[in-house]
């Protein structure tokens, strides 16, 4: 079943090579071909539903650093699911990929999220703005170099920032991230909790700004 569309894809696009996958069929294609491959899969192989557009950050200095990944599902042919990955062109800091909003309008928000989190610019996207973080946020949080706790920056809304004297701070990880102990039968022990409780909201981590309280 899966072999049919894979064989058709390979005969049409010899550049597509198999990609290691634990579940669904997956292929690697060059970035220049990805638009044509996706159009072929949609129009001739009945992959009518774009499930997800996401990306992988392979770490700083890797080449290519970013890979965009498309997940496709066929609603008319049972069990047809394929993952298409394409290494991003462009520099480390400004990766680019073609937009597929022309093929699936639903790609719009997926690509906006991908841009927001990884900073991948989708060329041809009608409205490439951030979707989760606010406009003007200077970072792309899912990049490898970005710490989970965040980086100090200005609060959205300059008037509120000035009025409250508050800014975006690196969150006190307090020994976190919070980890669940899976397999623990005592449920209160299994709850997500910080493993290191030596510092907290009140006891600042060495070298980090303590949380500022609101100006009265």
């Amino acid at each position, binding site marked *: 079943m899966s072999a049919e569309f894979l064989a058709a894809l390979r005969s049409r696009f010899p550049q597509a090579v198999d990609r290691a996958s634990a579940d669904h069929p997956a292929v690697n294609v060059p970035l220049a071909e990805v638009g044509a491959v996706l159009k072929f899969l949609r129009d001739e192989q009945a992959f009518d539903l774009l499930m997800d557009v996401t990306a992988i950050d392979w770490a700083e200095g890797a080449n290519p650093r970013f890979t965009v990944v498309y997940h496709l599902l066929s609603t008319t042919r049972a069990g047809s699911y394929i993952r298409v990955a394409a290494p991003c062109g462009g520099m480390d800091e400004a990766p680019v990929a073609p937009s597929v909003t022309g093929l699936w309008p639903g790609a719009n928000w997926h690509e906006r999220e991908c841009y927001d989190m990884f900073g991948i610019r989708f060329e041809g996207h009608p409205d490439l703005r951030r979707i*989760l*973080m*606010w406009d003007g946020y200077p*970072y792309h*949080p899912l990049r490898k170099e*970005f*710490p*989970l*706790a*965040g*980086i100090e920056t200005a*609060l*959205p*809304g300059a*008037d*509120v*920032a000035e*009025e*409250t004297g*508050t800014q*975006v*701070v*690196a*969150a*006190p*990880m*307090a020994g*976190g*991230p*919070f980890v669940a102990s899976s397999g623990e039968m005592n449920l209160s022990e299994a709850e*997500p909790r910080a493993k290191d409780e030596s510092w907290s*909201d009140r006891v600042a981590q060495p070298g980090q700004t303590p*949380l*500022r*309280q*609101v100006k*009265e």
Partner: protein
Amino acid sequence: MVSASTDYGYDSKVEGGVIVSRADAAINWIRTNSMWPMPMGLACCAIELMAVGGARFDIARFGAEVMRFSPRQSDCMIVAGTVTYKMAPQVRRIYDQMAAPKWVIAMGACASSGGMYRSYATLQGVDRIVPVDVYVSGCPPRPEALLDALMKLQAKVRREPAARRLLSA
């Protein structure tokens, strides 16, 4: 508090109908028993907040059943849920739009401290943008805990120098 006075203003026509009190007591009595909440429901705590409004827990027993979705008509903002940095300016603006006197209850772990969201996207406690009167622990808190917070807030309001603030404003 409010007490009947029999030796003041003796007059057979109004005897027993005169009550002497402090202005603070009267003002605070009025304020405590009709504290209209501004439901700032941002996450799962809002579901518990709805339960508090329902018949089983019935926040109406405390005079706070009139949930107002206009900040102009509300007295007490109940921040129920995770406040992201993106949402924070809006929360502050709604607080600014409320008419004084106004109070804030931080409901649940996220509103109080950021909770388990130690991340780049989450405000680490709503007290960083608005002054909080009562914090409620829990994730989410039980409805009874919110009622307890409301009662604590009422106790706090009863002690406020309301008349002095009104005159100095």
